[in-house]
């Protein structure tokens, strides 16, 4: 029953509104900009931790023979590098971008559930402290690969339950983030903003959130079954008890392949925002881009077994998964064509966001093509578990997902901070990153085709030269990222004042560009008018 009361106290309701001071501002943050900032800074930290692990790997592989670390620690580094980069760096960075940009782009005052937003962020430091903590317990950290295949993963020591709990926490954080995003987009759009008027970045996140919600329970269930097999006597994946370890691979990759698209669809959205701005043309084929994104998301559910052709499956199964995988090239090709067509006859300028977007376009396409090679069953039998696979997914995830994140940072950083960053340094960062990422990963194609297996700390001397070059590229790429961190923090601290539009272009035209730089919390300087 409703109740009403009248009061005339010295302080009326809602007069204490405002951020907490000091650390409290961040601990109890509920506004989307503070939380988005925390997500992105956290992901930057994880990017450097995961990157340091990658450098341990590449330092060991600089020469054949065992040089620096023992094989067990090497395997821990490969596993932890993947888990940290996927769940700690790339995904939180995209969630951070969603937090910052989606309310601005749809004209909402904040995310739909601000307190849940706070909770979903603050789970992450605990999850990753626990995950990193496995390195210091008896038995060490997880060393059986990020895919956690049983029975190998079951041999982990005291770190095993910590790993499982950390994965659960990461999943819970992702799910809460996805639910917040999806509810914000569906329920808090400005009047007049129909679905097909939403910015492409919002669209890609909407579809990503659908994917996350659909597949995260599968991951949670899979790791829970690992746990019960280990401690509670179940035999879901233990052949001795009638279970099937191969089924774990099916379950894992049913989650894992959509997970790949969870990491790349928002990247598509970012690039679709940036290319029109710096080509000074509208995005070519907006509707086709939306449908292509949805098609890729749908197809991601029916291609999982291409990760495991070599486990043995019926010929019909191999054919189905091969053809379904190749089918993904069609909507992806639509996207690449549309980005290229957007640039065609455009008045292009090459500011850092556009440089990264163009680099994404070229290098992600290389990753896509090597993916098509891997989709071919007989070829995959040769490439499987070689460095060719490592080269393929790193081309998709580094110059793909990570470059898109850097492009996004350079694109929106002036809007967030109110300052322009140092363009010369940013361009230097771009060229160093683009050159070294190719020095790092392109030779891995040759290594893989020559038969070098992945996840090994030592190798035959025939692989020495390309490994040395790859390691030089790794250190060059890693050190270049220190420049990125410097540019970002220098921009936060000060710099030339950014204009509201930021970029000297007829575009950009999203709602976020109608705000001052930086946009005040909950704010629109001019009424959000959706055209």
């Amino acid at each position, binding site marked *: 029953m*409703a*109740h*009403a*009361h*009248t*009061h*005339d106290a*010295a*302080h*009326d*309701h*809602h*007069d204490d*509104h*405002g*951020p907490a001071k000091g650390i409290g501002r961040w601990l109890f943050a509920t*506004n989307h*900009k*503070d939380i988005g900032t925390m997500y992105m800074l956290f992901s930057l930290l994880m990017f450097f931790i995961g990157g340091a692990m990658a450098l341990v790997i590449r330092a060991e592989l600089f020469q054949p023979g065992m040089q620096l670390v023992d094989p067990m620690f090497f395997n821990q580094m490969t596993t932890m590098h993947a888990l940290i980069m996927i769940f700690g760096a790339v995904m939180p960075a995209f969630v951070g971008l969603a937090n910052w940009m989606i309310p601005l782009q749809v*004209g*909402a*005052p904040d995310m*739909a559930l601000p307190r849940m937003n706070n909770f979903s962020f603050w789970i992450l430091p605990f999850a990753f402290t626990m995950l990193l903590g496995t390195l210091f317990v008896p038995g060490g950290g997880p060393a059986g690969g990020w895919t956690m295949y049983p029975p190998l993963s079951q041999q982990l020591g005291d770190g095993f339950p910590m790993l499982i709990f950390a994965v659960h926490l990461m999943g819970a954080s992702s799910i*809460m983030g996805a*639910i*917040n995003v*999806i*509810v914000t987009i*569906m*329920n*808090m759009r*400005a009047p007049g*903003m129909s679905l097909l008027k939403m910015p492409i970045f919002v669209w890609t996140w909407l579809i990503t959130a*659908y994917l996350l*919600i*659909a*597949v*995260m*329970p*599968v991951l*949670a*269930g*899979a790791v*829970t*079954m690992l746990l*019960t097999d280990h401690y509670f006597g179940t035999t*879901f994946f233990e052949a001795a008890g009638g279970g099937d370890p191969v*089924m774990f691979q099916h*379950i894992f990759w*049913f989650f894992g392949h959509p997970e790949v698209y969870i990491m790349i669809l928002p990247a598509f959205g970012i690039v679709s925002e940036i290319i029109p701005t710096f080509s000074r043309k509208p995005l070519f084929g907006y509707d086709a881009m939306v449908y292509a994104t949805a098609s890729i998301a749908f197809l991601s*559910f029916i291609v999982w077994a291409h990760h495991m052709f070599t486990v043995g499956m019926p010929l019909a199964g191999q054919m189905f998964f091969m053809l379904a995988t190749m089918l993904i090239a069609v909507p992806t090709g639509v996207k690449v064509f549309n980005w290229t067509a957007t640039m065609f006859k455009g008045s292009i300028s090459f500011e850092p966001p556009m440089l990264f977007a163009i680099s994404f376009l070229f290098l992600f396409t290389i990753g896509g093509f090597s993916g098509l090679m891997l989709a071919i069953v007989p070829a995959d039998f040769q490439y499987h578990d070689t460095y060719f696979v490592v080269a393929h997914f790193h081309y998709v995830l580094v110059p793909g997902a990570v470059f898109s994140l850097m492009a996004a940072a350079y694109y929106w950083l002036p809007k967030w901070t109110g300052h322009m960053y140092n363009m010369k340094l940013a361009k230097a960062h771009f060229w160093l990153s683009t050159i070294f990422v190719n020095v790092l990963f392109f030779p891995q194609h040759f290594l893989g085709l020559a038969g070098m297996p992945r996840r090994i700390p030592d190798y035959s001397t025939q692989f020495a030269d390309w490994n040395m070059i790859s390691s030089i590229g790794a250190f060059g790429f890693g050190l270049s990222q220190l420049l990125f961190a410097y540019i970002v923090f220098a921009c936060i601290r000060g710099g030339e004042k950014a204009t509201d539009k930021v970029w000297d272009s007829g575009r950009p035209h999203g709602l976020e560009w109608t705000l001052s730089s930086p*946009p*005040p*919390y*909950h*704010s*629109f*300087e001019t*009424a*959000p008018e959706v055209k």
Partner: protein
Amino acid sequence: MNARADLPPPRPTPDAKPGARPGERVLELMPHRSLTPKTARIFIASVAAPTVVVALMFTAQGFWPVLPFAGLEIGLLTWAVRASMRSGLERETITVTQDSVIIRHWDRRGVQSSVFPRHWSRVTLHAPPAALHPSRLVLESRGRACEVGRFLTEDERRSLAVRLKQLVGNMNETPAL
């Protein structure tokens, strides 16, 4: 009695309307929500369907632990949509009469009312205390303050501030209604 029976009828935009009584102005404020109860149900079903199908598929193969996680997730989604819809029911009315300004705020906890003497009140739009933080629209009088329009976007709050200043006037002013 329905807990929401005290809510004023929804209106599309916060704007002044002629009061029920002569010489009164009433501003009604409400947050915007894109979904209706019906489309919210369709939306939840559209998200739940693929999740449930996937979970049932694995359950049928004997991997039932996927199912409770899917259930938890759909439960959380349903709660999230309901919470978002419920917060959209928040309402504020600012009634400006010849003598007073009455602020009523409806939310799920009920109704809160504050009455200010119009002649001795002023409307202030406080600047954000930090670069990324909100402006606050506050009605002040004799050491008392009441914030209004927290759930509005900045443009809505600014236009509300302009309108309220016209209606309430400054301290020691009583503009004609």
